[in-house]
């Protein structure tokens, strides 16, 4: 294998030297020429190499995406799990029902709350940490980066269990700290007003690392000369941040915002483990609501309609973000 590679590399060099881009062995039908002889061979190879992915994609992705849409127009229920074709078409009934379903509207609101507060906090703090790591220090940089990133790799279920205990009003970490200074802890997860903010805090804690790493990569791509020129012109720290860092980080900001938003719109594990959607549905998210309707009550047609509404919302918001953040670069 090694000799093969070496030989190949050698002849590649020789070929590059001679200045021909098409390969003599395949005759005039060089690859880049795109002529018939080698095109045929590559068509077969191309499709053969694509087949495993395409089969899995069609069966486990394309089919379910379409099937969810079809199911959302039916009364698909438990008995249809064994007899899917017996489900009845009921038109838009599921969708009409959704928008008069208080529970669904509440879950929609809760998800929006989670995203609208959670995303800016995650992006903002991630950016701050990235800037601090990139500009202020030369020592222990890896140590800090690893520390801030560690929560990202952990199992959400496990950290949700841990956070539930951290926020426990009698024996938790926060309660302990507050009692050291003579205060009593509120019942974070048992309070309708505090449960969602607590969950947002946990999400920010867990996802900040992803955003930080993205921004560090973005910051390192900014040419040193640009910064130095700004400093020579007498720009202060804040001016440099506002005038150079933020504008040049725009693509990173866009990407980080989009992936964080998509992730947060799908929030499921945190309320599942920490609150089961309570108290009084104050942390019931769309995904959790869908899971319950679909897999606890087996209202699968109705749950499919929820899944599609969420999907359309996600698509809409992503397109909107791409547009908003792109236009600003002009």
């Amino acid at each position, binding site marked *: 294998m090694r000799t093969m*590679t070496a*030989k190949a590399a050698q002849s*590649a060099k020789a*070929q590059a030297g001679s200045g021909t881009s098409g390969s003599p062995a*395949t005759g005039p039908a060089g690859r*880049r020429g795109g002529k018939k002889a080698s*095109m045929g*061979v590559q068509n077969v190879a*191309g*499709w*053969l*190499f694509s087949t*495993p*992915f395409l089969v*899995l994609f069609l069966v*486990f*992705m394309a*089919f379910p995406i379409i*099937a*969810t849409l079809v199911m959302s127009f039916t009364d698909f229920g438990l008995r249809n*799990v064994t007899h*899917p074709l017996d489900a009845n078409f009921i038109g838009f009934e599921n969708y009409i029902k959704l928008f008069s379903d208080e529970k669904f509207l509440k879950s929609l609101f809760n998800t929006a709350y989670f995203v609208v507060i959670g995303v800016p906090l995650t992006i903002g703090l991630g950016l701050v*940490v990235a800037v601090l790591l990139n500009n*202020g*220090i030369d020592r222990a940089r890896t140590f800090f*980066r690893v520390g801030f*990133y*560690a*929560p990202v*790799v*952990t*199992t*959400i*279920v*496990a950290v949700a*269990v*841990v*956070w539930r*205990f*951290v926020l426990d009003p009698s*024996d938790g*970490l926060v309660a302990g700290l507050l*009692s050291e200074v003579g205060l009593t802890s509120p019942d974070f997860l048992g309070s309708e007003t505090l449960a969602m903010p607590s969950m947002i805090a946990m999400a920010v*804690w867990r996802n900040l690392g992803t955003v930080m*790493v*993205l921004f*560090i*990569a973005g910051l390192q791509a900014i040419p*040193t000369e640009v910064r130095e020129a700004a400093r020579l012109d007498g720009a202060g720290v804040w001016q440099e941040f506002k005038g150079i860092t933020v504008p040049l980080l725009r693509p990173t900001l866009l990407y980080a915002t989009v992936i964080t938003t998509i992730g947060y719109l*799908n929030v*499921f594990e945190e309320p*599942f483990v920490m609150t089961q959607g309570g108290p009084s549905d104050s942390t019931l998210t769309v995904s959790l609501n*869908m*899971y319950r309707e*679909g*897999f606890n009550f087996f209202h699968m047609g109705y749950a499919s309609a929820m*899944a599609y509404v969420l*999907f359309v919302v*996600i*698509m809409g918001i992503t397109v909107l973000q791409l547009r908003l953040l792109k236009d600003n670069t002009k």
Partner: protein
Amino acid sequence: MSATSAPGAVSTAPSKKPADTPPSGTKKARNPKRVLVYVLLSVGLLIMSAPFLWMALSAFKTQQELTASPPVWIPTEWTLDNFRELLDKLDLPLYFMNSVIVAVLVTVSNLVFCSMLGYALAKLNFAGRNKIFGLVLGALMVPGNLMLLPLFVLMSKLQLIDSYAGLVLPFAAGAFGVFLMRQFMQSIPDELLEAARMDGAGEWYIFWRIVMPLVKPALATLSIFTFLGSWNNFVWPLIATNDPDKYTLPVALATFATDPNKAGGSNGMLMAGSLLVVLPVVVLFIALQRHFTQGIATAGMK
């Protein structure tokens, strides 16, 4: 001025080592701004690691110290009772094996299938290539929750509920992997492959013997992310398993933690369980941290 120009030198990544070490030794780095940065970062890090520390310490506390008020921060007598009791109630080795088997199968199939398509998209000129790439990009945007309901029906019909196949197949070839491998494989010079073709090598030989060895770093990144994604995956295993013997670790832990009859008040047991679930990934992460940050950055930049 020396203090402010140093970070600039650091941020030019290639010359990192030589530029980094000598100046930091010679310059008068103790300026207040720098100290402030260290203080802020340290406080931040303390907050970030507090839940982990709390989990680790609590796992070794006695029931008495777990509920003591004022709180006991560091256990005075370290005990393994929580672990013993947990292992009594929860067959963790079984769930651990389930998680490992599923994660290994998912990772291996992603490495093979994503690389194959990545190679075709990057280096083979065939009709329909752009359409397939469009599919891959589209698939990146689709949230996994959209597919759960029909997938469950499909798996029930195929009688794959409570089977490894049912847990693995929906994740056997991810769009992210294809995208990552394609990006890496594009940087392999065409001349190298042309030369191999000239020597009479078939496409499979070229792919397996020439291209794959050249993209080892990408394969490492992909395996880490895929393994981790599978290890931490929750929703699908929750839906696709009814038999407790087929639970993966997160499903077992969540079921245990949300069932008041089982774990109820025993936070010690739950912290011991969380520690056992989190520890392997954190150790793996620290050992391989370079790949993580590079992988994210690469995927994000393209």
